[in-house]
């Protein structure tokens, strides 16, 4: 009861707020432009060629002139989460409505759950709108109807994206619980975003060099070292939710991707046989490849929300 009331009010607040409108317009515009570019270039390429399978999904994965839609969401999705959550609790605190809210006959967790739920619903509506719009645009541009498996893959992509952005929502709610000032919590959330999205992938390579060094002479005698180095780099880069997300979703949306590894060590015959039998994976196999990614993404989202939940429940709330 309390949960739904708070959730309802938060939803109304989100949809009527200026910053949400601005952000949504921006993301919508970029998505549409990207989809349009990709769509037109695909239409030209596909002329007089036998149509490959899963053309429809390429609307989301191929990068057109600038970037693909999924890399765009990977980069800027976190901003949506942060914008929706950075002042969730601190705004109530500074408006002095928090003490009033919790002196009503509702459980205290209804406040934070309601806010998280409203944020997650907003994110879902937003992403669904974007995906549907792009699908519509794609249908018009390339004139190919998505098959059932493509729709399934898109739905799965949608779910993963919702979790990914909700993770950032959780982070920003956590900061809004811990910091009194809204500006501090916004800055902290953005700092986290920059650190995990940009710094971690950059730092992963030099760190891997330091942890398991490779040089030309030893590699020649022991190629295992190269594999080791690559694995270290990979593990380190997976600390970034953005890497988790983009590896997970590209594999889900691109049935031709059979591994998330970027380094493949194989002989010429192997390579030949692989290129000869280049056929798409069934959905279950794609999921199987990125299952760890998906689970970790969901896990960090849950953990992050749990921490802010506990922090909020234990906090002493005074009116002054």
């Amino acid at each position, binding site marked *: *009861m309390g949960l739904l*009331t708070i959730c309802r009010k938060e939803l109304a607040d989100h949809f009527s707020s200026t910053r949400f409108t601005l952000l949504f317009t921006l993301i919508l515009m970029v998505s549409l432009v990207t989809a349009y570019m990709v769509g037109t270039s695909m239409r030209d390429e596909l002329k007089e060629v036998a149509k490959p399978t899963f053309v429809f999904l390429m609307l989301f994965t191929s990068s057109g002139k600038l970037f693909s839609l999924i890399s765009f969401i990977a980069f800027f999705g976190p901003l949506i989460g942060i914008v929706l959550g950075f002042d969730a609790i601190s705004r109530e605190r500074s408006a002095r*409505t928090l003490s*009033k809210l919790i002196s*009503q*006959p509702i459980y205290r967790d209804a406040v934070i759950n309601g806010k998280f739920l409203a944020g997650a619903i907003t994110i879902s509506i937003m992403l669904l709108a974007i995906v549907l719009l792009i699908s519509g645009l794609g249908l018009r541009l390339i004139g190919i109807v998505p098959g059932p498996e493509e729709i399934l893959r898109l739905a799965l992509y949608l779910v993963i994206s919702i979790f990914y952005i909700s993770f950032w929502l959780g982070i920003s709610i956590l900061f809004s619980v811990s910091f009194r000032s809204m500006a501090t919590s916004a800055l902290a959330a953005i700092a986290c975003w920059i650190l995990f999205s940009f710094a971690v992938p950059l730092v992963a390579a030099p760190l891997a060099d330091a942890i398991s060094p490779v040089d030309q002479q030893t590699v020649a005698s022991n190629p295992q070292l190269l594999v080791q180095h690559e694995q270290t780099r990979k593990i380190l880069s997976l600390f970034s939710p953005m890497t988790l997300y983009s590896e997970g979703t590209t594999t889900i949306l691109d049935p031709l991707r059979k591994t998330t590894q970027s380094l493949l060590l194989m002989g010429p015959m192997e390579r030949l046989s692989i290129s000869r039998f280049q056929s798409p994976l069934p959905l279950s196999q794609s999921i199987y490849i990125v299952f760890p990614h998906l689970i970790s993404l969901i896990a960090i989202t849950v953990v992050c929300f749990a921490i802010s939940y506990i922090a909020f429940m234990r906090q002493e709330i005074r*009116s*002054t």
Partner: protein
Amino acid sequence: MDGKIIIEIRELTKFYEEQVAVDHLSLKITEGEVFGFLGPNGAGKTTTLLMLLGLSEPTSGKAWVCGFDPTRDPLKVKRVVGYLPENVGFYDDMNAAENLKFVSRLNGIPDDQSAVKIDEVLKIVDLQAEPRKKVGAFSRGMRQRLGIAEVLVKEPQVVFLDEPTLGLDPEGSSQMLELIQSLSRDKKITVFFSSHLLDQVQKISHRVGIMIKGSLVAVGRIDDLAKEKLGIGQERYTLEEIYMKYFKEG
């Protein structure tokens, strides 16, 4: 005072780290009375109110509000108690009725019932004139009255008011005092309010309690306290004199 005991506090104690905020407070309040809770800033008045609402956990001691233990059953207490915090906040981008509607929903009152109730309480606190005005544009007096309306909309048995007249102009505060008195007189609501504005407390309270540094140094009817402390019965006295006497001793 006769009548049913509605709030009972027994040896309630609260420590913030090493500092004692409330020190073995024991108090009984009967139904329908206006109880003024006095004390300087930082005496532990707000902490006591928070503990009575179950918003803060006592270090030791017990309390019962309308028969419920706020530590164990905070929801039941909050259902029957209205609390007006010091410097209450509202959602500034909504109007008065919308704010009240939100609070009604949090109290589980269906919208069709609350609509009537909201009109009624807005009339009581004299805010019915501008139904479309956003709360952000309200004056301090109006906000404080809206706070009372918010407390009333849930039809409480007891109200806790924390410094309800702080920062109001003379007209605003006399309007507020009038309103507080009418709660007890017309609606038979028990009022437990904290303040450090002594003349106002004297005007409306049936009984007062004086709290200094976490302990309750005196409790009773104002003329009884005067007799006891100043040794004057029929003569003119003010609460301030009594209070200062206690304060110097404390």
